[in-house]
């Protein structure tokens, strides 16, 4: 079986076993066992909901440490467009790019600029009529993970193009090899990421056989490194190339704006995305041409590793997109952007490979569920009574994990004791 890789992990020391996260996880991937949360890796889609909801900040995304840039002679930063919206002191894209250079990079390459080429190729794909409609964007890896985990019948609707991030990396490397004396491992390419899902993609890219990025730094980590160097006035160099059409990818709805589509749905927030995917599976949206689905509220500006309030960041990015220096045209780059490796359906979590055994287990789940209180309180560490029944049959839990059941038992036991003492008198 294929390895399942995700970047969201638990800091066991910080986890109090409070069960706040288990109900928010859209794929019911979290359980609390022995007072600590555990992520079932086959189910985790890297959406970061649990990072947002944990009151003790015990859920985190694995990103790289900034020091790693010192292992490379020529270091290139790839900022995601949503990064531009993080700073109240910066009104120009140019000043953020300059600050990145001052923070230690030798060059920057805007992911927004690469996105303009993705927009062009996406338009061509839509026009070819080869894809099943509604076409679903593939820019948010958490959504692609969700589809391959829970809605695999919709994989044929997903745009089979590599992400702007990976295209930016490939372009940046080529340009660096042309204009500098550095080659191969001397050049380090670092993505500045709003989320865990994209951090995972820097290591295991969707649609590419191997990674093209050397490290991922979070918005949070880079924020502190960039802020001291921000200066809107002093940026004479011409670093920024992206235009309106690229920068607006930061917000939900930006992709469809740059695609100039009319018949579309732009949906943000993982729970809303689930709702829309269900409608598509039920054939209810066959008259819609395109669905831009992003796991985070507002789009990548609302990423779990973002610093700024996502509504503030959205407005800021919109303004910056309007004054962006580039003309928004697709850059020239000779490369086939179609996925070289297809996205695999994640193995469905059936109860047993033998269907008859699975049927017996399913009947057992129903039987146990009938006995449970149906309060869905989560105190047992499973997200619902139904999930507990399933966990019991899978061998991960016991019926006495249910606090209500346990109380009933104690009460029964206490009564028996009392009855016993009555008899003695």
């Amino acid at each position, binding site marked *: 079986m294929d390895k399942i890789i995700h970047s969201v992990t638990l800091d066991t020391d910080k986890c109090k076993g409070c069960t706040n996260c288990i109900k928010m996880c859209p794929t019911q991937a979290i359980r609390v066992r022995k007072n600590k949360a555990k992520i079932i890796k086959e189910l985790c889609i890297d959406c970061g909901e649990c990072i947002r909801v944990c009151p003790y900040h015990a859920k985190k995304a694995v990103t790289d440490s900034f020091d790693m840039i010192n292992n490379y002679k020529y270091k290139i930063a790839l900022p995601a467009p949503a990064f531009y919206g993080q700073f109240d002191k910066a009104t120009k894209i140019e000043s953020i790019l300059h600050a990145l250079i001052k923070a230690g990079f030798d060059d920057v390459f805007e992911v927004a600029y690469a996105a303009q080429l993705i927009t062009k190729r996406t338009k061509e794909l839509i026009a070819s009529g080869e894809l099943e409609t509604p076409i679903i964007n593939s820019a948010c890896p958490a959504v692609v993970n969700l589809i391959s985990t829970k809605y*695999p*019948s919709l994989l044929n609707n997903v745009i089979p193009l590599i992400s702007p991030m990976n295209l930016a990396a490939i372009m940046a490397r080529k340009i660096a090899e042309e204009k500098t004396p550095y080659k191969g491992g001397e050049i380090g390419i670092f993505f500045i990421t709003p989320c865990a899902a994209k951090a995972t993609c820097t290591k295991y890219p969707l649609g590419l056989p191997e990674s093209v990025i050397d490290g991922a730094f979070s918005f949070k980590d880079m924020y502190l490194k960039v802020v001291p160097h921000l200066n809107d006035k002093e940026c004479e160099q011409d670093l920024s190339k992206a235009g309106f059409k690229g920068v607006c990818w930061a917000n939900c709805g930006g992709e469809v704006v740059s695609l100039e589509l009319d018949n579309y749905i732009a949906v943000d927030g993982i729970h809303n995305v689930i709702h829309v995917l*269900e409608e598509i*599976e*039920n*054939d*209810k949206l066959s008259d819609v041409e395109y669905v831009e689905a992003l796991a985070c509220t507002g789009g990548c500006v609302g990423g779990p590793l973002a610093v700024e309030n996502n509504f503030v960041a959205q407005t800021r990015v919109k303004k910056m997109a309007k004054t962006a220096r580039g003309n928004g045209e697709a850059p020239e780059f000779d490369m086939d952007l179609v996925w070289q490796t297809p996205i695999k*359906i994640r193995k*469905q*979590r*059936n*109860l*047993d*490979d033998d*269907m*008859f055994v*699975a*049927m*017996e*287990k*399913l*009947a057992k*789940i129903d039987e146990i569920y009938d006995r449970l209180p149906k309060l869905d309180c989560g105190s047992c560490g499973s997200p619902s009574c139904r999930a507990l029944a*399933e966990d019991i049959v899978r061998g991960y839990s016991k019926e006495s994990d249910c606090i209500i059941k346990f109380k009933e038992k104690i009460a029964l036991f206490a009564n028996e004791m009392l009855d016993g003492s009555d008899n003695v008198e």
Partner: protein
Amino acid sequence: MNSFKVQYTIDGEDFSVAGEASRKLKKVLQSLGVDPQIIRKATVAMYEGEINMVIHADGGVIDAEITPEKIHLFLRDKGPGIPDIALAMTEGFSTASDNVRELGFGAGMGLPNMEKYTDYMNIITEIGVGTTIEMIVNTSLS
């Protein structure tokens, strides 16, 4: 155990829960390890039938029986019955009220889609008595 049987009661009063039974069936099929494309066919067919029971027939009962070979669905209601099956099966034919159309139903595509997504479909209906729709989706991929 050589088949798995499950029954769903469809509430005719409440639009907001319409679709819940097909969502539950989907979970059942997933935990039994049925192929995703087959699951989709069976759940879309059942979803359309379920919605019809709510909109046109005041609810009813759905029985599903699953074997490794097929998914067998029986949808029974005590609604008004369908006067002309051939007409009802025509794409675009609908008697849905304006109220229902405002909710996004009533395109007249439900029954045609049920036929499209299933390998067998049979409708037995009697005016004033009710409608029973039997559907089979084969689980082999061929």
